């Protein structure tokens, strides 16, 4: 009982699950993807968008495990990475001509899909017999094992250098040479939609439904005549396959992959992205993936301590918003349409103001402390105001917003308590 990770509290189901029509969100996704090239964006922005698409497919595949089947994996990047390595080798073989010479690069994600499924089938066999915490720890061990072994076989994994390739080989499809990033964009957009549609369809299959049942009550599933371990294993294979598909997309986009891609760090990142986005809603991981990709490329330039902010944000989501961003959006939407929106509006406003104050205090403290400890002699100067670590102004800038934020949050809670 203790080792069983799915407790009663995990069983709250989204009341709208299964009833919401997929037409509207898919229409929005396709429309946005079609409109983006019209904006004439820069190459770096398009590359960022490509990474967003890859992360969306990857996060959705992860949510097949975490959200749908209730399987917490710390090693999902293994399937992404193994497929990525295979696809880069495949690019090389296509370039050499021969048996693979007529394989269009456009269909590389299909090869990634197959390799991901194969890796899932091999690795899932010993690991899917357990659920809950043991499964999580096994996935961690497997990820470490694969990374450790990968460093021993340079011919397959390229050691520290990784494996690189050239995407402009083989037969062209639809007139896409895949050379300029604009053409890669169409490739990524196509496979993003295909991946999202595939995984959405999977969630409607009997197997997808069964995986949710096995998450909520494995014993009952067994009683009805299905083997939960077998359900977990099958879902695991599909999740690996879709992760592999994302790996194939990344192989074309980046033309290089290193062993870091299948280590613990990207596995942890996709876990955070998926959970922050919201595991109980199909589109939650998509939100999380976009946010994470954007933060990775922008925030990491801005602050050395961006992982600290990421960790704090993740912890706060775990404690206060376990439904993630998608849950918060859905909650706000429900509130906006409900009768007591006038009553709850001030509480919400107080909460937002309080959270803003706390964030400001955290940023000032961390940034001032970080610059002091790094010893580069820089001073944190937001909006042109220098805030060195030993100036009283810095302490005021850290303590006052923190106190104000705490007061605002307490006030919000008191209003909510007295009115309900």
């Amino acid at each position, binding site marked *: 009982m*203790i080792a069983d990770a799915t407790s009663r509290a995990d069983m709250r189901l989204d009341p709208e699950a299964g009833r919401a029509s997929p037409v509207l969100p898919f229409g929005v996704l396709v429309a946005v993807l079609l409109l983006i090239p019209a904006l004439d964006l820069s190459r770096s922005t398009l590359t960022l968008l490509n990474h967003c698409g890859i992360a969306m497919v990857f996060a959705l595949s992860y949510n097949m495990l975490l959200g749908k089947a*209730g399987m917490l994996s710390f090693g999902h990047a293994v399937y992404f990475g193994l497929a990525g390595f295979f696809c880069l080798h495949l690019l090389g073989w296509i370039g050499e001509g021969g048996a693979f010479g007529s394989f269009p690069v456009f269909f590389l994600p299909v090869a990634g899909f197959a390799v991901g499924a194969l890796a899932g089938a091999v690795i899932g066999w010993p690991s899917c017999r357990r659920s809950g915490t043991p499964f999580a720890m096994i996935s961690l061990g*497997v990820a470490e*094992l694969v990374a450790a072994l990968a460093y021993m076989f340079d011919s397959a994994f390229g050691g520290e250098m990784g494996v690189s390739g050239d995407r402009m080989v083989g037969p062209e499809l639809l007139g896409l040479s895949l050379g300029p990033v604009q053409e890669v964009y169409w490739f990524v957009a196509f496979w993003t939609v295909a991946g999202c549609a595939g995984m959405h369809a999977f969630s409607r299959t009997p197997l997808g439904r069964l995986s949710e049942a096995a998450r909520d009550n494995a014993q009952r599933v067994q009683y009805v005549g299905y083997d939960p371990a077998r359900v977990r294993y099958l879902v695991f294979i599909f999740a690996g396959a879709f992760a592999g598909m994302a790996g194939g997309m990344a192989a074309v986009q980046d033309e290089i992959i290193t062993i870091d891609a299948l280590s613990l760090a990207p596995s942890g990142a996709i876990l955070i992205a998926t959970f922050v986005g919201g595991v109980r809603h199909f589109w939650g991981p998509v939100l999380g993936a976009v946010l994470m990709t954007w933060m990775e490329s922008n925030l990491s330039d801005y602050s050395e301590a961006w992982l600290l902010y*990421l960790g704090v944000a993740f912890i706060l989501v775990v404690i206060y918003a376990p439904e993630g961003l998608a849950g918060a959006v859905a909650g706000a939407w429900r509130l906006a349409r409900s009768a007591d929106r006038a009553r709850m509006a001030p509480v919400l406003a107080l909460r937002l103001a309080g959270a803003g104050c706390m964030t400001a205090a955290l940023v000032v403290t961390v940034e001032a402390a970080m610059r002091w400890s790094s010893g580069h002699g820089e001073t944190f100067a937001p909006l042109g105001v220098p805030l060195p670590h030993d100036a009283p102004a810095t302490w005021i800038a850290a303590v006052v917003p923190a106190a104000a934020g705490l007061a605002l949050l307490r006030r919000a809670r008191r209003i909510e308590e007295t009115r309900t």
Partner: protein
Amino acid sequence: MDVIVFALLNGTIYGLLLFMMSSGLTLIFSMMGVLNFAHASFYMLGAYLAYTVAEASTFWAALFLAPVLVGLLGMAVERWGLRKVHANGHVAELLFTFGLVYVIDELVKIVWGRTAVNYRVPEELNFPLMTLFGADFPAYRAFILVVAAAMLGALWFILNRTRAGTVIRAALVEPDMVGCLGHNVPAIFMSVFGIGCALAGLAGVIGGNTFITDPAMAAQMGPIVFVVVVLGGLGSLAGAFMAAMLIGYLQTAAISIDWSMADIFAAAGVTEATEFGRISVASLSTAIPFLLLVLVLIARPSGLMGARES
């Protein structure tokens, strides 16, 4: 002969260090059902706090103060963090500690810098204890042995021979009943979490100067410790002990063996000419714990001593 003796001695020490960490993890898990993902981060904090205290005063003060500080920190984490997510189930608790890893990692980098700190073995213990087969055996290694053995004994004594230990063991299996008998179960949980973290901190104090104290030490040690507790069977102290010693001996032995795959599989026709043949046993040592985990789980899904099947 000398290789075997040194591998045995060093393996014992490494295994005991692993057990010191995994015992805290196992205690916390069997009582609260929470696998503390940040356990290795508390190990790292123990090493860094010991370095700071040892710089300010002596190593002996650090030996007692650092685990206590880490334990208090662990209690605070339980009181103001874990307890809040408890209602959302064990996955939420695991995720909370997972986020904590990032936060502690970054805080350590901010406070102590991104490079390794010079946390040394104390002068009083920095001499060769004896000479074995022409090589020195450092006194500090013997000291680790003594501390680990003392900790093991104390843990066993507290859990099995004191009233507090009886209450803890009772709260492990029947928390509701223990609550009905008038014990403060949340306080017991908090102190067990603190004790578990303090044990990790103690391992950090004596492990930090044996190995190296840098911000990567948590990420290095963490996965191995999780392997130990899963391999031993989640929640089983005896299993964790067996697994820790097993991994300790195997890893140390692998490092000291000067063989490659070609030597081992020579009968099967593997030669140095192939990539597989060139892999040395020593380079396999990092993969050994994880290989062992997969192999054992294929044969025994519940681990060496695991009784509960989830």
